């Protein structure tokens, strides 16, 4: 009696489960079947059909949706899949949002199933994940090495081994609104930080909020200023070229934090505290602030009618930070974590294609990102981008940005401490101590 009842229930359940998996599984199957080899379990790829088989390369990317690189990436992906249609196929996993991307890669790392190719678009995952990444040094020949600017190899190498193939250079100064500067009676960008603050006072006197700042998402706009302030002298410059610093209790850092505090308290918008990049950017777009620190990828927005008024781009000037400081560093490039020899070869071909001179040229033209390759230039770009590149060639001090240098949890800690610093609840010294404490956790 009971047995039959039991069987009935199990039967119903089984039918239910089967129906579910048929409903949902089928759809996924089509794509799954050929795809198994790349999910991390490599068991399928090495045996199986030999001749003329197409190797699939797993590549999760955040270059989707509104990301400024979406158009470029789609163009390159199409070209690659066409050129190598008989050998490879890139399986793209779309992960929208930079933070979501990094989080997902971390989970994959923890379960030892990193995808073939990773490109974080700037986040430094090399230090925490290099044990599962492929050391690419043997595959980079001299010619290749020479063609790309040295700073780019630097950020992608650890102890002489290369873990990332560079494709882009990080060149950052600040933009200013010439109209607003003129209204305040300012002729040209400041040469020293004292002058910078004097100019801020002039802007305030003319009823203009001087600087766009933010604190959320590691306070990108603010932290760029902070880094540039730190690099005012030789020691500071060295600090801003040091990977994973643990001690922030230095004079340069504390002085810079003090200046940031001053900026927060007197010279920025109300929504800076707690604000994101969007808030800072839109204040600049709407001519409510006169200065914003950011890279040349922002320039295309200056021409976008959805963002700014007609003719906005004509009002914009570019500048080095006071003391002729510029961010001029490599950007973390493409990392490879393929597990088999065959996959590795495929991944290398893909990465080579994505970082080729041709691809870099397209990137420069489509997104305004500065190429890693020294000889890549184009006439077909916004004049402001050229200006930024020229600035970088004149810079007296070249530094790297905090997101690629500092520990991830320090970068996160900045967001937490900025509001306290801004509201005077902690001193610059305490700010430095808090970051030091975070760094020591690693």
């Amino acid at each position: 009696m009971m047995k039959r009842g039991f069987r009935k229930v199990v039967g119903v359940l089984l039918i239910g489960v089967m129906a579910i998996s048929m409903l949902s599984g089928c759809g996924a199957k089509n794509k799954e079947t050929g795809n198994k080899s790349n999910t991390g379990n490599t068991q399928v790829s090495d045996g199986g059909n030999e001749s003329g088989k197409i190797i699939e390369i797993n590549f999760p990317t955040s270059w989707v949706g509104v990301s400024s690189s979406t158009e470029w990436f789609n163009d390159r992906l199409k070209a690659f899949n066409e050129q190598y249609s008989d050998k490879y196929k890139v399986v793209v996993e779309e992960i929208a949002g930079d933070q979501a991307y990094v989080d997902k890669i971390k989970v994959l790392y923890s379960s030892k199933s990193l995808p073939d190719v990773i490109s974080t678009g700037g986040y430094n995952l090399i230090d925490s994940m290099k044990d599962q990444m492929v050391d690419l040094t043997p595959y980079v020949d001299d010619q290749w090495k020479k063609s790309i600017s040295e700073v780019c190899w630097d950020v992608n190498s650890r102890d002489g081994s290369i873990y990332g193939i560079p494709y882009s250079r990080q060149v950052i100064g600040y933009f200013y609104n010439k109209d607003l500067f003129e209204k305040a009676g300012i002729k040209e960008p400041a040469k020293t930080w004292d002058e910078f603050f004097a100019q801020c006072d002039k802007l305030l006197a003319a009823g203009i909020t001087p600087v766009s700042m933010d604190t959320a998402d590691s306070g990108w706009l603010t932290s760029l200023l902070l880094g540039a302030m730190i690099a005012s002298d030789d020691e500071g410059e060295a600090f801003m070229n040091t990977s994973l610093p643990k001690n922030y209790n230095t004079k340069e850092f504390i002085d810079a934090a003090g200046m940031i505090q001053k900026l927060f308290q007197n010279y920025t918008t109300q929504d800076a505290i707690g604000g994101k990049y969007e808030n800072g950017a839109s204040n600049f777009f709407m001519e409510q602030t006169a200065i914003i620190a950011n890279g040349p990828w922002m320039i295309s927005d200056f021409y976008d009618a959805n963002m700014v008024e007609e003719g906005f781009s004509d009002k914009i000037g570019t500048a080095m930070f006071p003391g002729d400081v510029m961010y001029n560093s490599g950007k973390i490039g493409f990392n490879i974590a393929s597990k088999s020899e065959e996959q590795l070869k495929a991944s290398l071909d893909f990465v080579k294609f994505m970082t080729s001179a041709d691809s870099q040229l397209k990137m420069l033209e489509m997104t305004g990102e500065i190429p890693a390759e020294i000889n890549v230039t184009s006439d077909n770009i916004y004049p402001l981008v050229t200006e930024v590149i020229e600035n970088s060639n004149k810079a007296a001090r070249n530094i790297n940005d905090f997101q690629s240098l500092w520990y991830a949890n320090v970068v996160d800690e900045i967001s937490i401490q900025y509001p306290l610093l801004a509201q005077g609840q902690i001193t610059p010294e305490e700010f430095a101590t808090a970051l030091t404490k975070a760094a020591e956790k690693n």
Partner: protein
Amino acid sequence: MKNKRIGTLVSDILRWIYLIFFVFISIGPLLWIVMSSFKTNKEILSSAFALPSNFSFAGYEAALKLAPIFKFYNNSLLISMVSTILNILVVSMAAYILARCRFRGKTFLTLLLSSSLLIPTSSLLMPIYIIMTKIGLYDTKTGLIIVYAALGLPSSLFIIKSYFQSIPVELEEAAYLDGAGFAKTYFLIVFPIAKSGLATAAILQFLTSWNEFMFALILTKSTLARTLPLALNYFTSQFSFNYTAMFAALAMVIIPSILIYTLLQEQVTDSMVAGSIKG
């Protein structure tokens, strides 16, 4: 007499102020999202609460172009529905036993199952990811269905269990004495009586599945199994944003769930009225 009437009036007024306040904070945000989806980026960021200067559907067009919304939509619908059915079937059976029967280890089992209510899902992310890859359910709708059915397990269990406890036991016992088997009694007698409780739990389960973000992100990789909340990330990245499109997408995510809720809610009401008449 007059005093009493004034008292009623005052309490009526207080009651309405109370209700209006909650109406305001409940639907205000929703209206705001819909309104914002017709504004330009500039308008959203400069004056968040002003009316749009002119109504345009550009945001909706951009949203549909930037993200595969319709595909995610179908996935969300299927996954949410199937996980709800699975959840209610499985949980209600267990809840019935826990509400009605005495057996050794019952308290322990109840506590164990309830403990799932307290676990921050982010702490289980990684182990669950590993398990799903091991049993081959990574990047399938089935995988998400099972995870979602489990995510709603504790709250469904509580709701359904306390409903069973508030239903008089006589009816079932009568059926039982008439010779109906246990399973039959449950599915034919108890299930219909508990309809309102089950429906309430089902609605909550559906909404949990519909809105879940973290697991959807981690447990899927192709657009074949991805769900609607993931579409929202397509509209902001570190250095670029399209607010108009994002609010349009938000509206497209929110409005159907409200519609679905409202429709199902009617069901609950009907069964509730029926239940209370039977007493």
